[in-house]
């Protein structure tokens, strides 16, 4: 795809001819990465901050960027605006439930985002079996590892973390064992 065109211009691949790969790549029409937007379309800022704090607990920064840095919240906001618009009520109800649990666990706390790291973990532990957490986890993972054109996975940081590359063509050998198998 457009993302990695420079990567495959060198070398040769299996039975496919370069001209064919080039032709296929040239019509790859999707934009490589969504342009960062300044404004949220669906979530209000306070809710977004809380959702983002939970997403960061799911995929924290540390060994490389986490959910916050790769833009998971932008992915989620966009998903709720477009293909998952029918999940808005799940977010509304789910975050209301999160709020109830939070107030019970930490009376007087102002928001999820304002909790300490340990408190946030405690909160997640008490909601991790709920359907809403399942949805949030799915969205967080899609925002981390889905195509960057949806607003997440900025700089392909999610893909780099797991060792994935999106390309039009790969050359054998792909891994350690098929390389050794050829010797």
């Amino acid at each position, binding site marked *: 795809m457009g993302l990695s065109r420079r990567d495959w211009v060198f070398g040769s691949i299996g039975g496919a001819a370069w001209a064919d790969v080039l032709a296929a790549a040239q019509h790859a029409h999707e934009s490589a990465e969504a342009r960062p937007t300044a404004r949220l379309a669906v979530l209000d800022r306070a809710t977004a901050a809380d959702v983002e704090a939970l997403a960061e607990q799911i995929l924290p920064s540390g060994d490389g960027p986490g959910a916050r840095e790769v833009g998971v919240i932008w992915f989620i906001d966009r998903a709720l605006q477009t293909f998952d618009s029918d999940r808005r009520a799940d977010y509304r109800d789910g975050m209301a439930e999160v709020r109830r649990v939070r107030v019970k666990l930490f009376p007087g706390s102002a928001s999820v985002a304002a909790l300490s790291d340990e408190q946030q973990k405690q909160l997640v532990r008490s909601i991790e079996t709920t359907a809403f957490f399942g949805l949030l986890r799915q969205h967080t993972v899609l925002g981390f590892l889905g195509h960057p054109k949806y607003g997440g996975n900025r700089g392909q940081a999610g893909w780099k973390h797991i060792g994935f590359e999106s390309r039009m063509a790969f050359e054998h050998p*792909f891994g350690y064992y098929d390389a050794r198998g050829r010797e």
Partner: protein
Amino acid sequence: MSGPRFRHDEAVDFLVIGVGAAGGVMVKELSAAGYSVVGLEQGPYLRENDYSHDEIKYYFRPGLTNDPKTQPMLYRRGEKDPFKPFKAVEYGRQVGGGSVHFTGNYWRFHESDFHERSLFGEIPGTGFADWPIRYADLEPYYAKAERELGVSGLSGANPFEAPRSGPYPLPPMPAKSSGVLFERAAKKLGLHPYPAPVAILSQPYRGRPACSNCGMCEAFGCEMRAKSSTLVSVIPEAEKTGRCEIRPGSYVRKIEVDARGRAAGAIYYDASRREIFQRAKVVVVCANGAETPRLLLMSKSNRFPQGLANSNGLVGKYLMWDLGCFTCGLFEHPLNEYKGIQVTRLIHDYYRADPKRGFYGGGGIDARFDFQPASFALDGLPPDVPKWGAEYKKALATYFTHTMGLLSHATSLAMEKNRVELDPDVKDAWGLPAMRVTYDAHPDDMKSLAWLQDREAEILDAAGARKIWRMPIDDYGTNRHLMGTCRMGTDPKQSVVNAFGRTHDAPNLFLVDGSNFVTSARQQPTATIQALAYRTAEHLAGAARRGELG
């Protein structure tokens, strides 16, 4: 899209409903034989540049498959369970159908698959039966399908395979790391691993380029045109004859019959939801094992109040499922299984049923990964890895590149209670009755899966996996191998069509797709579906030439 434009009010020779794996073959063979053909396909007509490497679109959303938001469906497991909304069946919904996005595993049946009932006897509570044809009847058409569509493989490499009249037209694809590990382990255990036969080009063939190993293959469309879908192979040939018109965006709601009880044509909604009646001399339904029975059940008339071809009430019954089991293993060094085609090596050692095991069943086992990045992060990790947090994220960094899986493709016994019906209340976006599905596996199928999963673990262990984890087998998931529902047979009381797909009720109405299947063999039905299509097409052309179709 090119080719002639036929009038609606003049009968074309053949009307093909559903231009998928079987329908694509059908339109090509019938137009090449000299007949006028209209192919009605509900989905769009796509090109290579309509696809993308977008996991969200094709794995998580119905990018190339039926969309339950516009075509809802319901599912229940047992007769007493309530029906609930669930994408029970999934199929490719475009010109080319499921051949556009399928994984490409192209398995011929074994000889025994056509007469297992005679070999193993009755299985109480099931509709276990012999096919009305034998392997030898179909062999020339398997060979033709492999040649016409472009299939890579190595003949003679699988000691269990049925006799072949010739080699594969293309050499096999090279082994990936999963293939190398699997091959080594299987040999150690005395098994017979061999290169997977795939409808994917290992070399340029008939004007199409070879596979470039892009890796976004299963569930994706191929930008290289290397995957041998009917869309890139035979459908363009059909259009070149000047006698075939493909009409995408044409959703058929009813097959009409005339006063003599013969099929007269079909009523469909075009892309702007206008109702059109296309007349035809012969109607061939290739809408797959789920939509073909639904369309017949929707085609009620005074003469056929239970639906067309359904005098004996069997339309929709004996649905079989895409049953399998999956086990993963973690290895010391990187495999990078996300590159290349899905499957490069497999075994058929456990394919044949063996009464000594104490149950009917068996399966083929292949080496694969079966995930893309996000799907792996959500569903691929072993149960002892946390579902969130630093440990979760850390695990992803090693597991994604170091994991492979073994997938068994197993039996699904035909039972009358497993079926496709019309829901009396729920309607789709066109106001047509939604499909509802009842399916529960036979106890023997479940025993077979448990047994096969033990074999998977054994092989992964022999391959040196550092850790092995089994995916649950009681969750049947979504059915993607749609078989049964209009089974073929010689007895009009026990079957819906004869050995050539002709319905017992209407002499000029034919059904050719996965619905014809009498048994499930060991999944991977597409080679057999397309071989049946070649066989029926030849029969139809011959019968038309002799004036037998009237």
